[in-house]
């Protein structure tokens, strides 16, 4: 397919296989309701990209130019971060700063996976990009991959976004395995601690400056995240903040999904590497979840069993799914236990943590590479 047209307008076996993959993603979105806003455009893009003779994935084609102009330039993930920033309420984290520790604990899997990927023969850059999948933070994964390992961007993006849909499938068994029932039933009452408007407005500014100085490579991501958050918390640009977290986020997610789906071409996607990336990404996700849970258990013990370790699992990124899931798991054990605010504190910390970890990795690779 590289250059020129195939002889007949009939899909190759590889294209048939990728058409089946695209249809499977569509089925998951439509029949199972798994993250449809992501999987539907990705699945459809995959179908489009694997019909022969269309030219749609060529650099001038629809999917090709979306990919070139939005994904490779990092625009789409960064624009999405403005929307996420406008959506995130950092109040639970600001009221409970110790949750930041869980957001750090949840990132250890990234580094473990990096070592494993390197041992399997991936380059340092590629290994770093694969490790970041573990945070289940799609935009960050794409940002890092487009910088460090553009040749792996497609499988990494597919892994990060499909695993986001699998948060409620993959995390609960690990959460049950690593916590006792008594721990899952630890009640954490919502204790509102007033967070002043000044704090909420200063936080995005300070976070941008501090992160920019400490981890310069994380600045594009954290800067856009905090721009969105400042729009939200300043209260002076409500219309912008609303558009960013609704219309803009939806539109960019649609384009990003299409572009990612469009990059799943049989000739480049069907390789042994892709399977390895998917497997390592899954492992990274599990490692991150385990690391977060162990962090939660440690804090549970240190707090005299007043902290429910389930919220540690929200310390990966996967905002806001992981936070909701932790709250849901606690509620399933005890319907009068409402952990949502605590889980969201850990989850927003995880969002920050994954961005900083990604920045650190990119800095490290630049130094070592």
């Amino acid at each position, binding site marked *: 397919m590289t250059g020129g047209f195939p002889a007949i307008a009939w899909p190759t076996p590889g294209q048939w296989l990728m058409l089946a993959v695209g249809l499977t993603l569509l089925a998951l979105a439509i029949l199972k309701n798994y993250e449809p806003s992501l999987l539907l455009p990705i699945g459809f893009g995959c179908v489009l990209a694997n019909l022969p003779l269309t030219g749609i994935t060529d650099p001038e084609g629809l999917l090709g130019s979306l990919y070139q102009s939005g994904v490779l330039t990092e625009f789409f993930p960064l624009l999405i971060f403005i929307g996420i920033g406008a959506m995130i*309420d950092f109040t639970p984290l600001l009221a409970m700063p110790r949750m930041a520790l869980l957001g750090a604990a949840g990132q250890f899997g990234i580094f473990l996976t990096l070592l494993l990927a390197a041992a399997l023969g991936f380059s340092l850059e590629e290994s770093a990009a694969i490790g970041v999948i573990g945070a289940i933070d799609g935009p960050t994964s794409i940002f890092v991959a487009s910088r460090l390992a553009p040749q792996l961007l497609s499988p990494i993006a597919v892994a990060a976004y499909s695993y986001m849909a699998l948060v409620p499938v993959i995390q609960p068994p690990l959460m049950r395995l690593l916590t006792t029932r*008594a721990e899952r*039933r630890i*009640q954490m*009452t*919502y204790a*509102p601690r007033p967070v002043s408007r000044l704090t909420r407005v200063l936080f995005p500014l300070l976070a941008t400056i501090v992160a920019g100085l400490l981890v310069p490579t994380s600045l594009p991501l954290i800067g856009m995240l905090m721009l969105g958050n400042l729009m939200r918390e300043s209260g002076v640009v409500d219309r912008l903040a609303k558009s960013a977290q609704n219309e803009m986020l939806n539109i960019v997610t649609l384009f990003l999904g299409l572009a990612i789906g469009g990059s799943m071409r049989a000739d480049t996607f069907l390789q042994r590497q892709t399977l390895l990336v998917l497997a390592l990404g899954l492992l990274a996700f599990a490692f991150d979840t385990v690391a977060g849970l162990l962090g939660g258990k440690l804090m549970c013990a240190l707090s005299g069993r007043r902290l429910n370790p389930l919220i540690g699992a929200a310390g990966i990124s996967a905002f*806001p799914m992981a*936070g*909701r899931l932790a*709250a*849901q798991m606690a*509620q399933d054990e*005890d*319907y*009068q236990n*409402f952990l*949502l*605010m605590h889980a*969201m504190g850990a989850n927003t910390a995880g969002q920050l943590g994954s961005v900083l970890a990604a920045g650190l990795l990119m800095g490290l690779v630049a130094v070592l590479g």
Partner: protein
Amino acid sequence: MILRIRAGDQWYEVEVEDLRQRPLRVHVAGRIFEVWPEEAALQPTTPTEPPATIRTPAAPAVRAPQPASTMPGEIRAPIPGVVVSVEVAPGARVESGQVLCVLEAMKMRNPIRASHAASVRAVHVQPEQVVKHGQLLVELDV
């Protein structure tokens, strides 16, 4: 703590692991039972009383009042949010664990359930109402 309980003519030695835990885990003659105290009255304030009834371990949860409650029967918002639906009307009979209303916070729907079987005395919220932490949602007869 260890209690001695008489059932008919027989005395049992009953060990309770942690009185605040729900369900209570109770050791009787080498076996462990999970027990839900029936009513709110069973609080650590009356620690010497054994559970009023013993249910099967999987029995629906009957709970002590949640911390935000000030009076028995008052169901208060455990977290701030928006009421998306009210499932009961005043006068209705509710079972323990039945959904009274649904509170949405951070785009997650949280069912607020009855702490005990009762009839609904009053409903203080309506759909789309924004509620603060601890705000009274529903009153149940005690």
